[in-house]
């Protein structure tokens, strides 16, 4: 792997990368290898990192890097085709052929692989992508590690046989149609000292793992919520109507648009700051209707009560919402 260039993190500027190779690695999963046009070095990354693919003006999706960090000339991601997706995965599957160009930002790492002597790695479905890089890192570090990898069927599990070939008995493949749900009780039943647990996969798996790890030392469990927002968003990103009770107006919120922007377009002032559901500035009283909450602030009880919502990210779970605006 010889490509020379000074090591830099790139911010602000988007990289223009080319799809160097595209191959199907499991049922519904394509792997893309991305490179710079001139083959020069890419920014460095570590296990757990992801990149943003800029697939359209309002379509940015995150994918974990799953290749080898030592390969400085190319990045590898694997993307699952989501049924009913009108967003990221459809764009990747439908439009990114070998030779296509794509805007990329990153890499970033919100799922750092911290040093430890022992690791329990758990992956569900396409959640294998960051975990695969972690398995390689754990192996490099000479740590004691195991990987339990679940999926619907063997054919749907990307890289399953590669992993098994490379690491042998450390890797336990558990397709659901053969083995049922992962046996998390025996895997996580006893808290183990000196051990970090990393898990990535669908929400029910993460929740089950979090429950099992409640008795583990604080900081032992690390999970990555693998784009649940993206998937749910795709599923329920339907257009709806918002009645602004105080201004006496009604606005349509189209799919892919936020309530905040629709209300602003109608000329009604709304306070906002982060616009990603983390600061609480745009909290708005809900007078009628069901909310699809997508913020990171409200408690379960508050969500259920549905009296208030963050209009920068949350949407309607019904055809018509009435807000105190």
């Amino acid at each position: 792997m010889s490509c020379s260039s000074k090591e830099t993190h790139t911010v602000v500027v988007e990289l223009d990368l080319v799809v160097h190779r595209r191959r199907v690695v499991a049922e519904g999963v394509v792997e893309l290898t991305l490179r710079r046009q001139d083959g020069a070095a890419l920014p460095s990354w570590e296990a757990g990192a992801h990149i943003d693919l800029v697939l359209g003006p309002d379509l940015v999706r995150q994918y974990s890097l799953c290749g080898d960090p030592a390969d400085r000339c190319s990045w590898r991601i694997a993307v699952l085709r989501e049924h009913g997706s009108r967003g990221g995965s459809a764009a990747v599957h439908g439009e990114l052929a070998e030779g296509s160009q794509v805007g990329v930002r990153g890499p970033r790492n919100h799922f750092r692989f911290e040093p430890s002597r022992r690791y329990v790695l758990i992956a569900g479905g396409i959640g294998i992508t960051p975990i695969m890089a972690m398995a390689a890192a754990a192996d490099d570090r000479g740590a004691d590690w195991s990987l339990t990898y679940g999926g619907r069927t063997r054919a749907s599990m990307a890289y399953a046989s590669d992993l098994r070939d490379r690491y042998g008995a450390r890797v336990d493949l558990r397709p659901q149609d053969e083995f049922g749900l992962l046996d998390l009780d025996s895997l996580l039943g006893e808290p183990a000292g000196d051990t970090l647990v990393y898990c990535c996969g669908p929400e029910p798996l993460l929740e089950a793992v979090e429950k099992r790890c409640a008795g583990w030392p604080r900081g032992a469990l690390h999970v990555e919520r693998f784009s649940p927002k993206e998937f749910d968003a795709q599923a329920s990103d339907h257009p709806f109507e918002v009645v602004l009770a105080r201004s006496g107006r009604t606005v349509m919120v189209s799919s892919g648009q936020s309530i905040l922007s629709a209300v602003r377009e109608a000329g009604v002032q709304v306070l906002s700051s982060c616009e990603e559901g983390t600061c609480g500035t745009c909290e708005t009283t809900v007078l009628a209707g069901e909310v699809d909450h997508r913020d990171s602030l409200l408690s379960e009880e508050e969500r259920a009560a549905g009296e208030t919502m963050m209009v920068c990210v949350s949407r309607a779970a019904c055809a018509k919402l009435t807000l105190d605006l």
Partner: protein
Amino acid sequence: MMPTLDDDPFDDAILTDPYEFQTRLREAGPVVHLPKLGVYAMGRYDEVRAALTDWESFVSSRGVGLSDFAKKKPWRPPSLLLENDPPSHTGFRAVMNDVISPRTMRTLRAQFAKDADELAEELVRRRRFDAVTDLAEVYPLKVFPDAVGLRPDGRENLLPYGALAFNAFGPDNAHARRAFAAAEPVLEWIAESCRREALSGTGFGASIWAAADRGEITPEQAPVLVRSLLTAGVDTTVYGIGNTMYAIGTHADQWADLRDNPGRAKFAFDEALRFESPVQTFFRTAPADVEIAGTIVPAGSKVLLFLGSANRDWRRWGEDAGTFRIDRDAGGHVAFGMGVHQCVGQPVARLEAEMVLSALARRVARVELDGDPVPKLNNSLKGWASIPVRVTPA
């Protein structure tokens, strides 16, 4: 070639009126070298915002002032929030998000409103008052320490402590030296006040200690988190409310708008934060070479982010970026920062300002300056020591 500016942005002329310099900074380029300080600076909205949200390329753990913690021991144990990075930052931030959550904010509203009404009542009765020393310094210093659960005696230490912390982010100039010279008794009182025993059984302080009881943080970390509230929660809102009063006092038509619609007080405050940002600057450190719009800022550099300048960048706010207009959509300004370090006390500051401004708007027909405002200089904060005003009751 990277553009260079020969100014020291911490000299008194620029601290007093930063806007002419900030215009030159923005127009010079997306990133500019400041050889006097040996740092790089950014003043345009897009780059400042991108740098704030990119905590990996622009770390905070080496200090958010000029001094690089990797080279020089910090003057106090580093903040677990402000001067920290993920992953270590994440858990502490989660604790604080729980302490200051939408739920806790709801419980504070009634008390904040009552205190605001009482103060507004009294100020309107007086007709002439100082919008800083009688209002902006009085209201936050009442409601915020109460919300934290601080004991009543010694609260006069809070303003000097905030001034010290914010001056300390700048170079070792007269402002920093003056602040440090008077620091000792203040620091002692602050340390003392963060202890569990010194805090009331309810309030932000007690909630932080409760997190220690649950094992989410250690008992050694709890007072450091309480300290963060005291560093960041007082001066910032004092300056913010003062700056709003200044903006309104110098834009008569804007008060008329507010008087007719006291419900718009929150927008007035948000626009004032954009127009004259209390926290003007923060530093970050680039741990590796970083490319910004085609130029490389070398590894180990300190990068000075001009929040106040980003908030007046015409590229983001349009040709009237330098105008105070409360009907503006100021959402997305970076006065509270952005990304993982965005001000955790933001909802408290907003609630304070909303309550006190709307209490005045309901009682006051007109606000006019009643003498020359006196600026208050600080290495990181922009605001006023005195704003004499005269009000006409509604």
